[in-house]
């Protein structure tokens, strides 16, 4: 049976998740200057929903029942509560929250404190893929950016603009899709208790809608400013390459049941895309802070989860 408290907490997290990722879900397509708000919201909602329904079920057992044996409800509640607290805090600080890193970190902390049986192989796979995914995204973005620049250099400005319009819709949809598949699937699975084998698809659909509401109502694009504009400036073709690379990396992670932060893959993609050009200026301080946060937050979440569960 699904615990209403867990679903409530998951819903709250889904709303905040949508807020934190609003720049990816809506801000990017709006910021392109080629589409209005309605089109951006529509692409985002369809992407999140289809991702949650088509690929989301693969993530339902990615934490509870996969990383560790079935956690008691209090453990899952602590995991959600910490994820909410961390995500709100980082969003207010205008830093990209590694949402899945916080979830995994706090769940592991709880699992260790409650002496649940850990699946070492899956933990190792998750942590190692967190480092591999940005490399995959970077390589794909590098190749795609090169290919797009080469293909488009001989065509008219109008055709370039047309390509950009199609690419921004396709990649924005892809990003919403993988967020629905991986992150919404993760939240839904944790809410219904993946190990208990609950049917999380309905919950995932509901959470995808809640996430879209969070993106629409509270999102203003600040997080995108941090990971994007302050770090380096990318052309529309660069953004296409970055988002495509990141989406591919996350969908690979989804097949492996690895909870993924798309932000890490986007960072890797941005570097790959930037280095595909002859001249690149990267704000190394912002890149270092962002990278550092993604390493530190799962560790902090682990400690917090351990302490709360132990108490």
């Amino acid at each position, binding site marked *: 049976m699904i615990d209403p408290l867990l679903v409530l907490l998951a819903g709250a997290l889904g709303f905040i998740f949508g807020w934190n990722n609003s720049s990816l879900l809506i801000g990017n397509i709006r910021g*392109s*200057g*080629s*589409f*209005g708000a309605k089109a951006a919201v529509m692409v985002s909602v369809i992407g999140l929903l289809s991702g949650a329904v088509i690929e989301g079920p693969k993530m339902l057992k990615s934490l509870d029942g996969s990383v560790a044996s079935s956690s008691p409800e209090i453990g899952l509640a602590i995991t959600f509560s910490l994820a909410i607290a961390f995500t709100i805090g980082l969003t207010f600080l205008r830093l990209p929250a590694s949402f899945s890193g916080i979830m995994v970190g706090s769940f592991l902390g709880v699992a260790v404190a409650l002496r649940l049986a850990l699946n070492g192989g899956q933990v190792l796979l998750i942590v190692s893929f967190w480092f591999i995914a940005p490399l995959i995204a970077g390589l794909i973005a590098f190749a795609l*950016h090169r290919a*797009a*620049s080469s293909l*488009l*250099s*001989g*065509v*008219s*400005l*109008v*055709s*370039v*603009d*047309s*390509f*950009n*319009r*199609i690419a*921004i819709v396709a990649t924005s949809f892809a990003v919403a899709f993988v967020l629905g598949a991986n992150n919404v699937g993760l939240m839904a699975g944790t809410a219904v208790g993946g190990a208990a084998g609950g049917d999380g698809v309905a919950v995932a659909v509901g959470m995808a809608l809640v996430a879209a509401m969070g993106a629409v109502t509270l999102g203003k694009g600040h997080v995108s400013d941090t990971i994007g504009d302050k770090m380096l400036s990318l*052309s*529309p*073709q*660069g953004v296409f390459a970055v988002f495509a690379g990141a989406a591919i990396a996350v969908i690979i992670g989804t097949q492996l049941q690895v909870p993924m932060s798309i932000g890490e893959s986007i960072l890797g993609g941005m570097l790959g895309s930037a280095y595909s*050009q002859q001249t690149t200026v990267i704000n190394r301080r912002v890149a270092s802070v962002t990278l550092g946060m993604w390493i530190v937050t799962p560790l902090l979440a682990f400690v917090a989860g351990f302490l709360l569960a132990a108490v």
Partner: protein
Amino acid sequence: MKLKPLSFINRKESKVVQEIESYFKIVQKTVDGFVGLVKTMAVNDQTEAKRLFQVVLDGESEADSVHRTLSMAIAEGAFFGGIREDILNLLETMDNVADSAKDAARFLESEEDLDDFAISILRSEEMGLFVSNLQSAVAALGNLIAAFNLGKKELLSRIPVVEEWEEAADSSKDKLMKRLFKSPTNPNPVTVIQMRDFLFVADDIADYAEDSSDVILVLAAKGYD
């Protein structure tokens, strides 16, 4: 080259590019009117000068009107993401070309009875070269705008041509300045100052054409990455 499979979604953008080309033709017509005015004033044909002055005024006014309409359409439309501001800047600098042609024409129009020294300057070989260079700078800008349909390489290759004509105009302006200030005939100082101001304002035609090419360089860098 245009990617035909994409043509179904770029009708609005294609129309904007066509309108920019049409807008340029109005600007060019204004500059041509100005150049014709200079040549007519040199032979002191007042009737033709009045007609050409009106051509310049009408051209500038039409350019202003089209500039306003086109800018509004671009500002309100959801297209040319990432380079829209640069296109608006381009329209602004193109408008400055027409404005400069009108301002320079006013110098000649206000001088109903140009004295002999002013006429000799207008008739000089350097003046002929100067206005020809102005015309060439504007024509090179038109050639550059036409490359919007051809691709990055062609676009970039045409940018330096505008600058070359602008430098040629600068050079011929310098020669005219020397002629103005080192004349052995002791001309009226008021005439000298007025002709100097006229040269400065007329030279703005080439300067703004070059500014337009600079905007197109930024536009190409952003658009084509």
